[in-house]
């Protein structure tokens, strides 16, 4: 199910940030029989390491091509400023899952691990005012 921006605002207003910031548990390496695809995924995917500070700068710098230098948009694309880390992470995760409707952000957010999205959200909340 997709949600729209105003629904997200309600979610944000309801202070559901806590759950969104919990790190995702690594996949269990249980010996119990599982479907083939799930087994393969569980075996080869270690939990992604958090990106270094310099790598986060590399990532956020790309955002500025649409959202403006330091997240201050020069036009119709929303700015990245004025959000705390929890709000930014919730939005990014919902774009990644596709629950939050967007034109292009649903396609971009899927390009990052949860750890990377968390680091990007922290950068937005801390540095983009």
């Amino acid at each position, binding site marked *: 199910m997709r949600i729209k921006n105003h629904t997200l605002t309600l979610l944000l207003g309801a202070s559901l940030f806590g759950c969104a910031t919990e790190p995702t548990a690594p996949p269990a390496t249980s010996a119990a029989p599982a479907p083939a695809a799930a087994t393969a995924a569980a075996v*080869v995917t270690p939990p992604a390491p958090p990106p270094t500070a310099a790598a986060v700068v590399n990532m956020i*710098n790309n955002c500025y091509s649409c959202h403006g230098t330091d997240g201050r948009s020069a036009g119709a694309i929303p700015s990245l400023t004025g959000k705390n880390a929890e709000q930014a992470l919730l939005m990014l995760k919902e774009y990644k899952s596709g629950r939050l409707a967007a034109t292009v952000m649903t*396609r971009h957010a899927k390009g990052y691990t949860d750890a990377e999205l968390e680091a990007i959200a922290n950068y937005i909340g801390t540095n983009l005012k």
Partner: protein
Amino acid sequence: MSKITRRDFLKIAGAASAAGVLGHAPLAGAAKHMGSGSARVVIVGGGFGGATCAKYLRRLDPGIAVTLVEPSTKFVTCPFSNMVLGGLRTMDSITHSFDALKNKHGVNVMHDTVTAIDAGAKKVTLKSGKTLSYDRLVVSPGIDFKWDAVQGYSEKAAEVMPHAWKAGPQTVLLQKKLKAMKDGGTFVIVAPPNPFRCPPGPYERAGMVAHYLKEHKPKSKVLILDAKDAFSKQGLFLDGWKKLYGDMVEWVPGAKGGAVQAVDTRKMMLDTALDKHKADVVNFIPAQTAGKIALASGLADDKGWCPVDPRTFESKMHPGIHVIGDASIAGALPKSGFAASSEAKMCAAAIIATLKGETPAENSLVNTCYSLIGPKYGISVAGVYKVTEKGITEVPGAGGVSPKEAPDSFRENEAKYTVGWYQSITADIWG
């Protein structure tokens, strides 16, 4: 299963590069500086790649001395030059000055032309006769044309059949010809073979020309003669043309005789294997190579494009020189202004790290190409890219094109964001 994880790969790559296994010394010239403060970086070209690199070098390290060499005093962007043809923009609105780079960001901008690069002596020579020494050189020269690839076409022929693939006087010339065309005329776009600057560009142009013609000369036709059998955002373009312009836009793929073999600028004729086409206006977009200075300096391979290390964009031909933008071979990244800007940011960060004797951080590269089919009909393709053992590859499961089925409001939003993107990226680069 022996899949290498990104973490393992980076360990391997890091170790290999520290041991010098990956070839040229990644830290050449760094030791004597012990920090990037006194380092001099010279950048060739003030477009999407070069201007971004200049600004972001200074943002990342205000102590670094950056000289940007660009012949033009103003830069006219190829992105949105199609909107000039469509009547949606003026030339002024796609022209950018270097004032902010000079005054706000402390870049030494020289309006001159680099005529020679001496990789051994780490020096460039300018048309004015001056020479500049550098610790790292960034070459962002864009593209040049293979003028003689099609019989009858030449640099001189471009005055009759403009390419308009470098924005500026050629854009103005093509617009003049479009405006002078009679109602009921045929506007032919000759689309170039791969690889070329701005993969969706010729097709966006078709829609923008059709938009102008629909308003002013509705009996006219836009014919795309293409050497290729497929193109960027093809399904979305075909649907959009049909919806907005009916049968006005026709695309002839290579398999159906689209490849142009000869042109006659006096008779305004184009020959393909199967047909002869009479045109009223021809927009001939030639086959392309990296910009001239890259070829002349031995930075390009035998196909005319520049091989680079995907982590730093350092040339595989000459250490100490980085090649970014359309001229570079950047794996899965397309030759777009957005990609050039993203490469420039990664290159700037890698140069700073290298000058400090550090290992460059992991690259993250992004592209988004918006195209307008009509003023309220926008489409896009996006991608997120990482460096893997295979070079620059697209992160699977991410990116892709706009949905094929979408309400009008979706296309309208993407049209709005097309304009928003242009405002933001040009301010991010030249602002």
